[in-house]
């Protein structure tokens, strides 16, 4: 089964076979989970949304362009799901700024907070939902401004203003914690 390409697996999954799709999920689940984890900053929510991503992706598999790579496509689906999730949570999220932060940190994890990666995750989590998605799509999924505008269905000018403000906020957070 490892000799099969993603494309082979997708073709078989489209014919209704379950096992090839399971193999596809196994290949891409870590990167999809990390999209959700960077945006949501909460493990349990990120795992739920990653699972939901693969369910949605299976539903929309017939719309997938076989000439393209599966990974970028499924990671964009994940980012969109996370945005919808955050938008639905928005009112309470604004009332309680650190609601999204993982409260279930073990002592070992608390030590890691001092590490750079933990600081970066905290800084990302402090951004407004739309800013987080723009940073995710630009820095981790390497989409162009135009592609982000299409993906998020917002004007190009908003893509730029969200991204540049997000970077300013991130720089302030990370600089302050140095």
């Amino acid at each position, binding site marked *: 089964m490892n000799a099969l390409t993603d494309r082979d697996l997708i073709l078989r999954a489209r014919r209704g076979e379950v096992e090839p799709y399971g193999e596809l999920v196994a290949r891409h689940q*870590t990167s999809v989970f990390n999209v959700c984890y960077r945006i949501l900053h909460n493990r349990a929510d990120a795992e739920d949304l990653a699972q939901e991503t693969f369910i949605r992706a299976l539903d929309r598999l017939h719309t997938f362009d076989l000439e393209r790579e599966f990974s970028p496509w499924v990671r964009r689906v994940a980012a969109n799901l996370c945005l919808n999730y955050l938008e639905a949570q928005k009112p309470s999220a604004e009332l309680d700024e650190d609601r999204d932060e993982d409260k279930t940190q073990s002592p070992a994890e608390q030590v890691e907070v001092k590490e750079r990666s933990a600081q970066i995750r905290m800084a990302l989590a402090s951004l407004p939902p739309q800013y987080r998605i723009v940073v995710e799509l630009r820095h981790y999924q390497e989409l162009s401004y135009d592609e982000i505008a299409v993906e998020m269905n917002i004007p190009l000018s908003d893509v730029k203003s969200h991204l540049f403000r997000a970077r300013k906020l991130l720089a302030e957070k990370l600089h302050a914690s140095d």
Partner: protein
Amino acid sequence: MHLTDNQLNEYLDNESAQRAEIETHLDSCAECAARLLALQTLFADLDSLPEAPLSKNLAARFAPRPSLPAQLPRWLTLTAVLQAAGALIALMIAVPFFSLMLPQVETPPFAIWLIEVQALWTSSLDALSNLALSFVEGYQFTNLPTYPVELSTLFIALAVVSIFWVFGNGLLLRNQTK
């Protein structure tokens, strides 16, 4: 005139149409070069974020379902056997009855054979009863079953068998839809 934040961001994102002008200014302006470096440091920070491991296998949801057991449960097999036995008994009672009640219809050879079996069975019972009751003085055993039996008895027997049949098939169907 220094470079704007937008110019620096677009330059680093490879989305700028004025690359040559920006580079000329950066070569001659330490302040703008420092701002560019700060932004590059942020990019590097974001790039350095490692992927977090998943704590559960999302592919498990898409594993093929175990196929239904080839054999029916023991109790269900027993039900089917009892149904068949019930149906056979009902047939044995009904066929001679109808062939006697409807003399104008030509009696099929199978029914004749069944009547003979029934007659043999009845006479055997007669013999047994006579043997057992020969010691009982003055008692005349006149109530041995003879055909045709009462119509109501037959219908009750058929109704009971039908109920068993419907119930048994209901169980079989319910098992299939699971």
